[in-house]
């Protein structure tokens, strides 16, 4: 074994292979970048409000309790499809009102139930955040999650 693979051969395989795979990874990422912009997400509806909503999402670090498209903490429900779960596809106004009412009612204070803090979002921030969640629910995730439970 020691004769067949010399140290310099091992080194060359390491450098050559790493560069090769880094190039492939970069090219596929570039392709995925354009695929996301043109196919799987709807950039034409990525409005100012959706972008502001993403910042509301980030400012309060929602990701450290919830998951979004399956990524995040696993302490609170998935929100990538919360718009769908609230029936937003059929009744947009109802879903919006429902989500707002839910966030305004936190924390529930119920003993033994996980508590969501009260973030005191303004009407504008609530609308932006919901726009962001609505936009997110339309990303083509190849059929994930399997059902509305998220």
């Amino acid at each position: 074994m020691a004769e067949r693979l010399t140290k310099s051969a091992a080194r060359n395989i390491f450098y050559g292979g790493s560069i090769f795979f880094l190039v492939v990874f970069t090219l596929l990422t570039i392709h995925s970048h354009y695929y996301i912009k043109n196919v799987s997400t709807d950039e034409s509806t990525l409005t100012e409000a959706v972008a502001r909503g993403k910042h509301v999402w980030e400012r309060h670090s929602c990701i450290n309790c919830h998951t979004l498209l399956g990524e995040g903490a696993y302490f609170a429900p998935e929100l990538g499809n919360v718009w769908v779960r609230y029936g937003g596809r059929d009744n947009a106004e109802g879903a919006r009102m429902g989500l707002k009412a839910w966030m305004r009612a936190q924390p529930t204070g119920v003993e033994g139930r996980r508590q969501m803090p009260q973030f005191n979002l303004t009407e504008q921030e609530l609308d932006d955040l919901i726009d962001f969640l609505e936009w997110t629910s339309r990303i083509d995730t190849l059929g994930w999650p399997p059902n509305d439970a998220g």
Partner: protein
Amino acid sequence: MKYQTQKLAYPYFAAALILFLVQVLAGVLAGSIYVFPNFLSDTVPFHIIRMIHTNALLVWLLLGYFGASYFLIPEESEREIHSPTLAWLQLGIFVFAALAAVVSYLFGVHEGREFLEQPFWVKILMVISLLLFIYNVTMTVLKGRKTVVTIVLLMGLWGAVLFFMFAFYNPDNLALDKLYWWWVVHVWVEGVWELIMAAMLAFLLIKMTGVDREIVEKWLYVIVGFSLFSGLLGTGHHYYWIGTPEYWHWIGAVFSVLEVVPFFAMVVWAFYLVYRSGRDHPNKAAMLWSLGCPIMAFFGAGVLGLMHSFPSINYYTHGTQLTAAHGHLAFYGAYVMLNLAFFTYALPALRGLQPFNQILNMWSFWLMTGSMVFMTISLAFAGVIQTHLQRVLAMGFMEIQSQVDLFYWFRLGSGVFFLLGALLFIYATLGPVREQVAVQSGAK
């Protein structure tokens, strides 16, 4: 210890261990909230505690790598560190940035991408510190003897700095955001950090087994080759359901299988070298950690990761407690144990002592490793049940959580034992030296 500047490692290791304690304490608090949901909910909500838990982990691991670099590079390069002053400055900036981040989190000031929550100015301070570090160690390596260990270590460290730059790119399009977020998160832990891990392990094995450097280094190249070949495209297993193209499904599956190879190779490598040397190194605790690290990394990062990396399985398990189970054992096995192995090896020299408090240290090994395995199994059970109820039967999230409560109790229990193990480790390594246990003759 041949070189004066190796002593720079000592304050780094001490700072790392303090932040390790912060991380574990935050973990125990977070685990407590799982079973007492109203605990701290008004003062320090769960999301803040989790942020501290994950960020403190990343920061103390980095401090460990910095310290280990300052310890091993002089010996490998056969010269002193380029600038000890810069090393102290770097430590000051980094620790200040870490503490500032923790304080700002407690006041609710943070950014909002997972693991990258550090406020912008803290990120800038971290980059300054990283650049000071990379300059300092690169200069040292360039001027001295170049070994495969230092070259691989430098590549890992440079990679960590370069890929961190993606942390500054945050597009409004969520799917794009996620695409590049993984260029930091995945490429760090399943790519360039594996280079750092393999290099540090190689150094420990060369020193402790005394096996010919040529053999260790050749296999080091093979292992890190497999790490990068598999790790880069292995990012594909994060690109299944976030708006990325479907070809990532088979790329992710194939390269996830390959990602197990370097971890298994590290197990074989470490055990083969120890077997071959036949030498009985007096620092038995360091040897225990050095052999335990690749084994637990293989199971935690390799096997448990692979088990839910196939798209057909991941479709159901994605974002459940299974991910948490895998994450805990993977980080513990690969990177926590690696650092603790290195600290255990280096601290006797740094403190000017023969290997000390070996029995206590080995107790901490079994306490921490045992409780982390228990925690992983508990979370895996919770995850499997959650997967079935939520993804197959479409039951609501909150309802399921109350059904798996028992496993969260198990997790909290194992977390408390882990905390005891961590305290014991810190006491054994930084605390007073107990009476020397006579080393058996022949162990030199």
